[in-house]
């Protein structure tokens, strides 16, 4: 195996934005003496160290305003660091926002040439790829129409088609894939996967955490301009989701509509009340939810759910969906929810519990109340289990399968 070289190296990168509140000459002159007071420093990035090897697909994730896009722009050389260095090598293509550089008055054809030139392609190279680009974008019919008449989906299709045909070593993608329709998104993801096989590097900024788990082999979590986690996509999204859950819990607490109630625990049990960690297929699962209210609570709803470690809900229900009004709650109470015939796919799951108003908002949430581990023989993936798999027509008379 050959060594994979690093293609992007970020050392000690910090970026400061100065927020000025006065923009015109008059204001600046009038406020010259007070100028300090009219400036505000904002650190978008703080001491970032990052090295990305060729062939990896890295997701930059984090809450809004955490500096993901700024970091991506610094990598792309669009903004210069306040301190620290960014080094990169290889041909870089940036797919940043809807067809930046598309001129609305020009036709799709002209814009393809223009955009390709912006991304560093020569005219002959564009000529060569032109048919492939149009074909990929799937808008042959409109290629000679002015771009201003395009829908936003058509925009992205064309922009993405150009970006992937410039043969980049490094592709920077900033939250654009979400705009195309599903078939196109799948096409893009397929293309990204073939990019990965070809050893190209992709840096992706996105809020779609499931997408990150799906395509990235590494993810970096940013918060307030700092890296708070850097690891496999699964680990990183877990950190971020836990972070989001904390935030939701604090927000709920601070929203403080005088509701003083909480979920204390959710315990997975067997039908006869023993603690359960690894439920067998079709085994009854009892979730014992312990709730507590300091003041009498009326019209409340209890919810439970099972999530994957990345936070994707697998199963969830609540007493309102079940049509079960609950009696007034005061003090502590245990409620058992029994699930029958549950068959989860192999892997780890989290159990959550929540309290809400009838027809209203959730006010208490316990996201990772307990863990479930489901064993399997590795013959299938995904959160849903089946009772048997049979394959027919593989050329042998007997069908392979698991009883």
């Amino acid at each position, binding site marked *: 195996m050959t060594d994979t*070289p690093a293609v992007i190296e970020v050392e000690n990168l910090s970026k400061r934005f100065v927020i000025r509140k006065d923009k015109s000459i008059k204001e600046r002159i009038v406020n010259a003496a007070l100028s300090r007071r009219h400036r505000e420093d904002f650190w978008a990035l703080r001491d970032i160290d990052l090295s990305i090897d060729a062939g990896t697909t890295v997701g930059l994730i984090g809450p809004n305003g955490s500096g993901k896009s700024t970091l991506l722009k610094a990598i792309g050389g*669009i*903004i210069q660091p306040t301190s620290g260095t960014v080094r990169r090598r290889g041909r870089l293509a*940036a797919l940043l926002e809807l067809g930046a550089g598309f001129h609305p*008055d020009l036709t799709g054809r002209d814009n393809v040439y*223009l955009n390709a030139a912006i991304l560093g392609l020569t005219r002959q190279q564009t000529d060569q790829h032109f048919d492939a680009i149009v074909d990929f974008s799937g808008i042959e019919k409109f290629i000679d129409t002015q771009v201003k008449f395009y829908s936003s989906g058509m925009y992205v299709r064309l922009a993405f088609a150009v970006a992937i045909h410039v043969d980049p070593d490094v592709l920077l993608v900033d939250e654009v894939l979400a705009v195309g329709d599903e078939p196109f998104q799948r096409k893009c993801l397929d293309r990204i996967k073939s990019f990965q096989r070809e*050893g190209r590097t992709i840096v992706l900024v996105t809020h779609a955490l499931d997408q990150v788990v799906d395509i990235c082999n590494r993810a970096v979590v940013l918060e307030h301009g700092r890296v708070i986690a850097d690891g496999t996509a699964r680990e990183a999204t877990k950190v971020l989701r836990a972070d989001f859950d904390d935030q939701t819990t604090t927000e709920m607490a601070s929203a403080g509509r005088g509701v003083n109630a909480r979920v204390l625990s959710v315990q997975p049990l067997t039908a006869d009340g023993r603690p359960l960690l690894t439920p067998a297929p079709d085994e009854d699962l009892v979730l014992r939810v312990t709730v507590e209210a300091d003041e009498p609570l009326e019209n409340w709803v209890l919810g439970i759910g099972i999530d994957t470690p990345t936070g994707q809900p697998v199963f969830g229900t609540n007493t309102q969906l079940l049509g079960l009004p609950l009696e007034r709650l005061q003090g502590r109470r245990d409620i058992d929810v029994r699930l029958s015939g549950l068959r989860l796919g192999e892997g780890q799951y989290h159990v959550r519990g929540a309290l809400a108003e009838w027809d209203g908002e959730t006010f208490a949430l316990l996201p990772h109340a307990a863990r479930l581990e489901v064993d399997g023989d590795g013959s299938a993936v995904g959160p849903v289990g089946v009772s048997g798999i049979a394959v027919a027509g593989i050329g042998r008379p007997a069908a392979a399968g698991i009883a």
Partner: protein
Amino acid sequence: MRNPEAVTRSARLLQEPWQTSAPSGGLFKGTGRSVREIVARRELLNLLVRRELKARYKDSSLGFLWSLLRPLSILLVYYVAIGKFLGAERSIPDFAIYIFTGLIAWQLFSEIVSSSTGSIVNNAGLVRKVYLPREIFPLSTVGGALFNFATQMVILLAAVVLLGRVPTGSRLLYLPLSVAVVLVFATAIGLALAATNVYLRDVQYLVEISLTILFWASPVVYSWRLVHDILGGTWMESLYLSNPVTLAVLGMQRAMWVAGTDEPFPEDLGTRLLVSLLVGAVLLWLCQRLFNRLEGNFAQEL
């Protein structure tokens, strides 16, 4: 089990030199780097110029003709109002040729300066999203202006041929020299203004006003003889003549205005033009350095 393409790619990447994304370098090194980058992207520059020209009159039915109608209408107005009504025509032979010659020189200058001032802001979408040598945007407006200049030159040539006053001989040397002076100064000023306009949007309005005033500081619609009669020999005349655009306008008239061959022209016009070309070259370099210093923060200021 790695894809062979991936293997060759990483082997190639291993050989490639690192690029640091902070471009500003030393005074001279930085210029060299910028020039190399721009030359490398000349195809894009070409496309941007075309984009401007194509997009400008895209939806109008007369299209490209409009870029000719504008200077012709200005010519008509000046010819009637100043030439006929104010009687300037009597002291200036071939008044129409005279005005048009000065006018196209002035228009080249003012178009470059005013459109490159807004060029970075107008291309904010690109500047914020993709790394390109940013000088490309002001330079593309230079290209557009040159194209317009060329079409107006064709009209002028047609006119002198029709009137049978085709300039010949050494006087034609003034033409490239004057155009070069205009180009160098306008580009230099345009670069500096394009960059400062990002930080201070007032600049573009200031430019509009200054250009209107400066138009009258060059002998386009009045004759150099009048200026010379009034300011002759004073320091104000030297001041008047230190304006490179004035020199270029005079140079253009010297080249193309055959009927005015016997009219007075400033002494040593050629030398003055050469000197201002040199000064302009230095200014261009300084302005490029300024542009380079300021461009680092373009993306966040826009």
